[in-house]
């Protein structure tokens, strides 16, 4: 069997049909991860007693175990101890696992970003009669978001690719579709090359959008 580039064009539309599932997993997991990560970061940053320690433990645990182990733990493990968890479908389990994990990484990025906004602005806000909530919402969080954007973008790009492990839960996303497709016609090289290029293209587009966003959010800080 020789390398057949023409075959790649045939495979492309078949694989891209499953790209939406990959994007759904990545985007939804990212949204949850940002929310959970922000909460953890605020607990850490504000040194909220007890909850701070909880956040430290959380981050350590979810950074410490492989994604695959975590997904198996949730999808195959949980139902054996909590019968109700067997009602959870594979997509939910995948989103849960990926969000919980990425949140741990994001929490540390967000904490550093919050710390990068100088405390003087917080004090200035207090001295003009604003509440801490108003100060965070209007000044600290917008600036911290900008500072966190490059690293957060990296996490998102990593997440897009990491969704490829969920084929193990039986979800047909981009990579799973490639495996099935290749198994039918034994064109492994062409199929996996196509799927690799599709991931690459997605990452390039996301990277472009991120840099646009970064430029726009960075406007106030240009001299």
């Amino acid at each position, binding site marked *: 069997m020789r390398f057949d580039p023409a075959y790649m064009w045939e495979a492309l539309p078949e694989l891209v049909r499953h790209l939406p599932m990959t994007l759904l997993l990545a985007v939804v997991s990212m949204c949850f991860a940002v929310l959970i990560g922000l909460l953890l970061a605020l607990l850490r940053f504000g040194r909220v007693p007890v909850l701070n320690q909880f956040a430290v433990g959380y981050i350590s645990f979810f950074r410490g175990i492989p994604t695959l182990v975590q997904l198996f733990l949730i999808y195959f493990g949980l139902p054996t101890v909590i019968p109700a968890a067997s009602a959870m479908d594979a997509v939910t389990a995948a989103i849960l696992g990926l969000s919980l994990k990425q949140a741990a990484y994001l929490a540390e990025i967000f904490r550093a970003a919050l710390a990068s906004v*100088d405390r*003087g*602005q917080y*004090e*200035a*806000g*207090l*001295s*003009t*009669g*604003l*509440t801490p909530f*108003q100060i965070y919402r*209007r*000044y600290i969080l*917008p*600036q911290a978001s*900008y500072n966190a954007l490059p690293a957060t973008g990296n996490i998102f790009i990593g997440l897009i690719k990491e969704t490829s492990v969920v084929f193990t839960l039986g979800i047909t996303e981009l990579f799973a579709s490639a495996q099935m497709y290749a198994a039918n016609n034994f064109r492994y090289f062409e199929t996996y090359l196509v799927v690799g290029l599709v991931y690459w293209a997605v990452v390039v587009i996301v990277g472009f959008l991120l840099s646009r966003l970064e430029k726009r959010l960075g*406007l*106030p*800080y*240009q*001299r």
Partner: protein
Amino acid sequence: MKIDVHGIHKNFGTKPVLRGIDLRVAQGEVVAVIGPSGSGKSTLLRCLNLLETPDSGTIRIGDASVDAARIGRREAARLRSKTAMVFQSYNLFRNRTVLQNVSDSITLRRRASRTEAERTGRELLERVGIVDEVVRQYPATLSGGQAQRVSIARALAVEPEAVLFDEPTSALDPELVGEVLSVIRDLADQDTTMVIVTHEMGFAAEVADRVVFMDEGRVVEEGPARDLIGNPRHARTRQFLGQLGDRTVAEPRKPRGIGELDELYLESMVAG
């Protein structure tokens, strides 16, 4: 008295920073607080705005008062709303335009609609000499002098009973100091009550009605500006002013008699 502070004590860890400070400032009075670094003058100022919480003592500003021993969240916010602070490093909100920096506090505290708040903001910015082209810019584009003037406008937007200045010119390039000082001078002429922590002795002598000299967490001496800076009574004050090598500092003259001291004190009280 606009501001009446009594018996303020503050420790950082085990290190005493303020050891029983009394300070009274009258309506429209300008008080300059001077002293070596580490003397507690900035901490005192920050206590007035409760950016630092004193360990003990009482603070009254206008009709709001707190006892440091038991400060509630409500009381703290109320006292804070009576003053506004101008910081050494401006502390402008970097993600907001010059105009928003000034008008935000008005809109967020629901004192006026956005349009009205922006009109007030523009007026205040004009008052501190910020021209129209600059109001839509972001703080990153400003010179230090402009930034500090914007921060003064932001402080005025709160309509404070008193404005607190924490070394407002210390972070500025020498050629930009003048524009900030002239704005403060204008405020003094308009009878704005101000407490200014400063190293600019010449300016303190010129603008302040009264100067307070602090050292090691205590008020060493206070009096009318020209008297204290031109003719300090205490050896420590003389030493400090001498070190600055400021031309406004006279050589120590003959020690004053007790009667004169009382007179000076009375004078300062009457002024205050």
